[in-house]
């Protein structure tokens, strides 16, 4: 008897489709279950394969026996027509509970068998796994290589070595830097800059140590954070305010300069111009490729000072802050609680 007839002759027996996975093993599967997969269905219809062991349908390489088992479970459940949506959904949710590796294999296998509902189900599950994670976590979960360069990670957009505008700018900067270097060689190197550099670090330390608890009450004019809809009115008033403001800001920088009392352990050098800071500010900032207009020895000293400052900043901070704030508060409470606070506010320019 031919294989094709076998299926017809024994109707009370279930008909089976024979499937062969990439590793060579062959198994038989109930026909209605296997035909749920479009790829298998097409193979059976177009080529007539699958009706016997010798003519088993070769499944794509991505389908191994274990995964095939899972897929067939899925098909077996869903090919039954009578199930409700709720049943199917519940089954699906339980079905995809597996480790990530298996989920990946399942997704890829379902895709090769063109079983779209299962592809969607597994893809969504994978998406949920990916969401909310950091790149490092994702790499770990999916065993992916960490092959983006530091530069690429920092600015994934910036793989522009051939952007003409960037190249032109770089050339321009390089040329200008060279020009500056030449000019500096001819003139004297700015000694003032050095001095201010040293002092500014001291300044900063003193300034922080001194800390200023006094509130600069006199300075506030009446401009407030407005309701954004009242634009017209605001425009007029803010113009007035800016004018007054500048005067008082100038007063302020003068104030800054003369404040340096309080219990401070370190030097209290005269604050010349506290705002003209020009030391290299950042600690982990790599300024190797940027010209400072300063010679290397000076740069080293600056770097050392900055590190020193940073260390002090980070270690002494909590105590010093307590110091400053408690001192500051004492001084403030006195005038306010006497009711003099109201005087301060009345002296504000109201209109």
């Amino acid at each position: 008897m031919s294989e094709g007839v076998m299926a017809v002759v024994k109707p009370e027996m279930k008909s089976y489709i024979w499937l062969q996975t990439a590793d060579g093993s062959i198994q038989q599967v109930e026909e209605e279950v296997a035909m749920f997969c479009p790829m298998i269905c097409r193979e059976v219809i177009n080529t007539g394969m699958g009706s016997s062991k010798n003519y088993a349908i070769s499944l794509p390489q991505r389908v191994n026996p274990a995964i095939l088992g899972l897929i067939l479970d899925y098909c077996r459940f869903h090919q039954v027509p009578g199930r409700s949506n709720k049943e199917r959904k519940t089954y699906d949710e339980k079905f995809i509970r597996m480790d990530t590796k298996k989920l990946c294999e399942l997704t890829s296998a379902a895709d090769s068998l063109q079983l779209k509902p299962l592809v969607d189900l597994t893809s969504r599950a994978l998406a949920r796994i990916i969401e909310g994670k950091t790149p490092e976590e994702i790499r770990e979960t999916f065993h992916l290589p960490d092959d983006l360069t530091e530069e690429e990670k920092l600015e994934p957009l910036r793989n522009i070595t051939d952007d003409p505008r960037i190249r032109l700018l770089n050339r321009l900067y390089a040329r200008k830097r060279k020009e500056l270097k030449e000019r500096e060689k001819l003139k004297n190197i700015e000694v003032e800059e050095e001095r201010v550099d040293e002092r500014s670090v001291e300044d900063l330390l003193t300034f922080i140590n001194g800390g200023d608890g006094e509130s600069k009450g006199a300075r506030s004019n009446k401009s407030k954070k407005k309701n954004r809809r009242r634009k017209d009115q605001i425009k007029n008033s803010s113009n007035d305010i800016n004018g007054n403001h500048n005067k008082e800001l100038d007063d302020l920088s003068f104030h800054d300069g003369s404040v340096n009392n309080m219990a401070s352990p370190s030097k209290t050098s005269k604050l010349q111009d506290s705002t003209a800071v020009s030391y290299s500010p950042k600690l982990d900032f790599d300024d190797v490729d940027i010209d400072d207009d300063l010679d290397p020895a000076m740069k080293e000293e600056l770097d050392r000072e900055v590190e020193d400052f940073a260390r002090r900043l980070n270690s002494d901070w909590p105590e010093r802050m307590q110091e400053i704030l408690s001192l500051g508060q004492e001084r403030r409470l006195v005038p306010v609680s006497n009711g003099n606070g109201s005087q301060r506010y009345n002296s504000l320019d109201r209109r």
Partner: protein
Amino acid sequence: MLRRMASSFPEEVLEHVFSFIQSDTDRNVISMVCKSWYEIERWCRRKIFVGNCYAVSPRLVIRRFPDVRSIELKGKPHFADFNLVPEGWGGYVQPWIAAMATAYPWLEEIRLKRMVITDESLELIAKSFKNFKVLVLSSCEGFSTDGLAAIAGNCRVTKRKAVKFWVLLEMLVRSIAVVWPTDEEAVVIGFCSLVLPMLLPLRRSNIQCLVKIIWVAFSLAGFFLVDCCEVRNLRELDLRESEVEDLSGHWLTHFPDTYTSLVSLNISCLLSEVSFSALERLVGRCSNLRSLRLNRTVPLEKLANLLHRAPQLAELGTGACQAELRPDVFSNLVGALSGCKELKSLSGFWDVVPVYLPAVYSICPGLTTLNLSYAAIQSQDLIKLISQCPNLQRLWVLDYIEDAGLDVLAATCKDLQELRVFPSDPFGAEPNVLLTEQGLVTVSEGCPKLRSVLYFCRQMSNAALMTIARNQPNFTCFRLCIIEPRTPDYLTLEPLDAGFGAIVEHCKDLRRLSVSGLLTDRAFDYIGTHAKKLEMLSVAFAGDTDLGLHHVLSGCENLRKLEIRDCPFGDKALLANAAKLETMRSLWMSSCNVSYGACKLLGQKMPRLNVEVIDERGPPETRPESCPVEKLYIYRSLAGPRTDMPDFVWTMEEDSAIQQLS
């Protein structure tokens, strides 16, 4: 293991997985995982959000993401809403539109916030994007109703033949582009493969037949495709709070009579009358219309007519309501509104007369959003209205609501998530309403789902803030604006440090915070210590020394936007935390103490930052280096200094020292 993963997981499958991941953060994370994911992600990315239009050039975006369908851009800094950014600062969208017109012909959505868009740009949008669907202009300016007419007039049903060819070509190009790297070549090949078969003489050859079959197949496919995308028209036109030059109300008539796909229309910012008959017809034929926000010139009498034509509306913004009570108008309105069973959101209510309010009572139970921020309704009427809205989730209201109204709100609206209380008279010296901190405390007690608050008031206490913090540890957005700067705790006359400290300590998920009142550096210490998820902070008239700024910059790990005005913060904290600025989107400091010298230094040292000095007093070089700058806007950028600055903005560049010498 690695190889197995890569080989067993084909790109299309991974792409399919990515299609279920749409949030920008997650997409950015995916692109950082590894090289292959980066590549796959960039090809299938359809939606882009650029938080600062000057942070990156259009060219870079287009180069990296070749097939974008939806783009959102933001321009001016947030403080532009308070008129702190001078006119002409920037935020021009034309370079983007021009670049995208050629690169993204299938762009569907453009969303802009605080940008300048001209009529020219609007016309270019109308011409260039065949499948354009959504235009949202939020707080934008620079355009007129002529530009709107161009957008409206573009909504044609495109002719079948032309589309068919275009679609075919596109399909061919796409399939070839998978193999061929450059688009130009792919287009040529696509074109040839369409045209050549027609030129080849009919000969018995398998290849010829095959080619002809393919050509026929494509034609059929194209035919079907045309049927699917025939109505590729505008769905959303939303002008939010933009400033539009109102030349005529006739732009609405430019929507062709065959146009029916409008889903959302917001013209509430327009000042002059729109052609009402055109509006009526438009509303009548667009059966999918879900959101309609009218402007003030649409009178109440006519509202009923519109509503009768659009009973499926979910969001309605009324026009002006001022009128004496006319019974027929009133009953018409009641009838029309009760027909709108799906209405969930109400806004508008300009100049509303309280007698008309009962007209909306019938739909109140279904309301989830209510925007009464233009309605000068007194407390009793507000109470009557709100007590009918038990399902309210979002309420924007003027401070006429008073503490009494907020009590009723707390008792009635248990689902409330967002509350904004705006000041009715912010410039008045004395309070004109009985709204105090107690109202906010009551709401925080009574509404367990409250997440977002914007509250203007005149007095606050540390005790109240601590109570609020304990009641509502789930705040994501807390903006408190005490109208008078440097107002202390009115009970103890102390600074409000402890109160705000409690807020940041208890609300671990706080993303956005605005502080006000009398605050010392200690408040900023609390913020830096506790507000680890804070992304945006607004500060005005607060702090004592640079220490305050230092606390915030060094402590708030997730800080993206910091805006400061009128605070005594100067150079030191800024320079010491210069590296932090590269991890943030932007920093705004106006009327502070930052010197020109420090700005120059920052610009020199940090090439990836644009340090913009905004000073209307004239070039900063004419003043001493220690002189503080008026306004400072610092943002990270891959595009380098911008080229469209007005004459009161200077970008501190690497070679700014040379500029001085030369």
